[in-house]
């Protein structure tokens, strides 16, 4: 796949994640006990065989760079190609709809100009999935498409909310891009924020539109839909979009379902992440853990049910944790009770305290809180 490069828009907006994105962009939000959301698009590119990846950084990019380093854990520290950090533009206030801002690419146009690849795969960064783009790329070449948009089908309003609905013509051509209507009556094909575009076409679009402030590649596409060969490619993989705290909670909990865990984490396309090399997790004599995912370096002496724990958690005897997500290094004191709670990193819950959220509205405790 030398003829393909990848670009991740690591600056996807995330206004609805409360405390989780106060100090970090959504790309760096921890997920599934040991991953970060960026790992999913990045690993999917690497598993496709893409050896050159440009990562457009969000404004507050320290946690992102802390995670990626030079890209070694994704085998992207290369002499030829590798991981390129592309500083994103300073946007100020823009609408959430905008995902693929041309200004971000215009600032980094050299990355695209000096490359010789035929195609570019572009993805945003608020979804968890394990996808191999090889089939989509083959389709793109077979159709001699200028652009191939990836889509799924659904009739549920939750899936379609804030999505772009595609009108498809013969042979999977895209006739129109529209925002979702109020209440769909049947299956609708919706764009999943990933597409393949010819590099030279992308360069032309950037050059043509860069003088206009805040314009999205999708708008440029829409303008030129009648002169471009735009196709749509359907995927059936699990795509877990995270736009809200509830999304975040539910997509994490999806991992406790064997079939989703298998597809996302245990597929032959391995998920890569920064390797921490921590010791195994210790279970004490009073530990009672059921239906949960735990990462290394935890010390468990309490009860845990239907929860996901990141590394370094300490759970004291008598503590009861149910339906919770604990990010790194949380400390739960004796007899504390937690239900439907998301604890950010380094949260300490003192002995005997009770924290409860609801299934529909999980409680988020922000980083370094002591309760």
């Amino acid at each position, binding site marked *: 796949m030398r003829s393909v490069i990848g670009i991740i828009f690591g600056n996807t907006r995330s206004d609805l994640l409360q405390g989780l994105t106060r100090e970090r962009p959504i790309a760096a939000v921890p997920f599934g006990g040991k991953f970060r959301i960026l790992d999913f698009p990045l690993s999917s590119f690497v598993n496709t065989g893409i050896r050159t990846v440009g990562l457009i950084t969000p404004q507050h990019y320290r946690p992102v760079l802390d995670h990626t380093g030079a890209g070694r854990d994704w085998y992207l520290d290369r002499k030829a190609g590798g991981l390129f950090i592309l500083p994103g533009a300073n946007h100020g206030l823009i609408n959430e709809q905008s995902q693929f801002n041309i200004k971000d690419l215009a600032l980094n146009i050299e990355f695209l100009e000096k490359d010789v690849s035929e195609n570019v795969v572009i993805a945003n960064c608020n979804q968890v999935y394990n996808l191999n783009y090889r089939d989509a790329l083959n389709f793109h070449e077979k159709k001699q498409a200028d652009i191939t948009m990836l889509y799924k089908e659904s009739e549920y309003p939750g899936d379609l909310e804030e999505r772009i609905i595609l009108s498809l013509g013969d042979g999977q051509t895209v006739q129109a891009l529209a925002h979702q209507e109020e209440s769909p009556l049947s299956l609708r094909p919706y764009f999943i924020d990933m597409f393949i575009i010819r590099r030279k076409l992308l360069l032309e679009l950037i050059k043509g539109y860069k003088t206009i402030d805040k314009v999205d590649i999708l708008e440029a596409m829409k303008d030129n839909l009648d002169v471009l060969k735009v196709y749509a490619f359907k995927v059936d993989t699990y795509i877990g979009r995270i736009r809200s705290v509830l999304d975040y909670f539910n997509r994490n909990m999806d991992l406790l379902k064997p079939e989703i*865990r298998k597809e996302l*984490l245990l597929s032959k396309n391995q*998920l*890569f992440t920064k390797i921490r090399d921590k*010791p*195994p*997790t210790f279970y004490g004599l009073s*530990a009672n853990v*059921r239906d*949960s995912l735990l990462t290394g370096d935890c010390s468990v002496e309490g009860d845990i049910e239907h929860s996901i724990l990141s590394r370094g958690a300490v759970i004291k005897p008598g503590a009861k944790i149910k339906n919770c997500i604990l990010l790194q290094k949380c400390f739960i004191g004796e007899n504390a009770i937690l239900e439907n709670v998301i604890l950010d990193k380094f949260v300490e819950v003192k002995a005997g305290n009770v924290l409860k959220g609801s299934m529909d509205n999980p409680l988020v405790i922000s980083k370094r809180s002591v309760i």
Partner: protein
Amino acid sequence: MLKKECVAMLLAGGQGSRLGSLTRNIAKPAVPFGGKYRIIDFSLSNCSNSNIDTVGVLTQYKPFVLNSYIGAGAAWDLDRAFGGVNILPPYMGETEGSWYKGTANAIYQNINFINYYDPDYVLIISGDHIYKMNYAALIDYHKEKEAEVTISTLEVPWKEASRFGILSVDEDYRITEFQEKPPYPVSNLASMGVYLFNWSILKEALFEDELDEGSEHDFGKNVIPSLLNKGRRLYAYSFQGYWKDVGTIESYYEANMEVLRSKDSIDIFDSEFRIFSNDIVQTPHYVGAEAKIENSLISNGCVVLGEVYNSILAPGVYVGEASQVRDSIVFHHAKIETDSYIERAIIGEKTEIQSHCIIRAKEKNSSDSSEITVVQDHHIIPKGTVL
């Protein structure tokens, strides 16, 4: 000219025959330990934590797993352009070549490797000990005593002293006597198999030892006694802390179980002096709805649907529904299917225990001294087997 102050030579060629089927397919230093680690991680992490960035690893017995595990040493931050980890197998010259005939001979055959780095000191360490040691403190002590050889020592229980190289020292800790495995030990100060030499002294001693036809080419048996006889300045360094030679199945099993009582053992959780391993990305481990885990270490990538007590599970182990694992060590990616019972056993890498198997020591009456069952790696134990 580029040079290094100290080069470490890590002896990892031993067959470890007393570990029985644990080392049938791999060298002893590559045997898993404490869940995700391998025995050699401790020595390599010690080098890394002591700022010794040039390590020669002497291998010859079934080296594939060990060599691929060590790779370029990046996992221990030991990948360097000048220095780093170098794997040193025996090799052929124009006219001759041979296997390593002993610890001293292994170093002798690699004199050119050490000369390349032109070091002041050479540290000889072993790849089959479990301990945490800052070698920099040993080097400082060596300089302070103006020693030519410094041997790291610890006090062992008298009844075990005859298993070790035993030293006698004067009040300045200068070594006056050295006996390898004496039947009647005169002291309980034991050598840990960690030697620091001035390179010039070691080189000369190696040339002499090579010419001595009666020599077994062993540091403890030949080189150290001969230097002592010549009146060289040999000093003992007194090491404080946990140190364990995992040379036998019993000591290996015991050392692992001690990790579960981490207060009096090697502290793998200490973030100040970390033990590194060549880790790969594994998913978090999953604990099933009917599972029960007590007093155990569980690594990433495991799936536990049954019960696990007082045991250590390496990455990727699967324990099926209604199976029980007690007082056991299970290596990487072993699979234990449903309704099996395993007690006081060591289960090899990628071994598959099918359903309804029972594996435990034959004599149930004396639990302390009862035998440990070892199931070799890559085996399949068929359904319903009772061992």
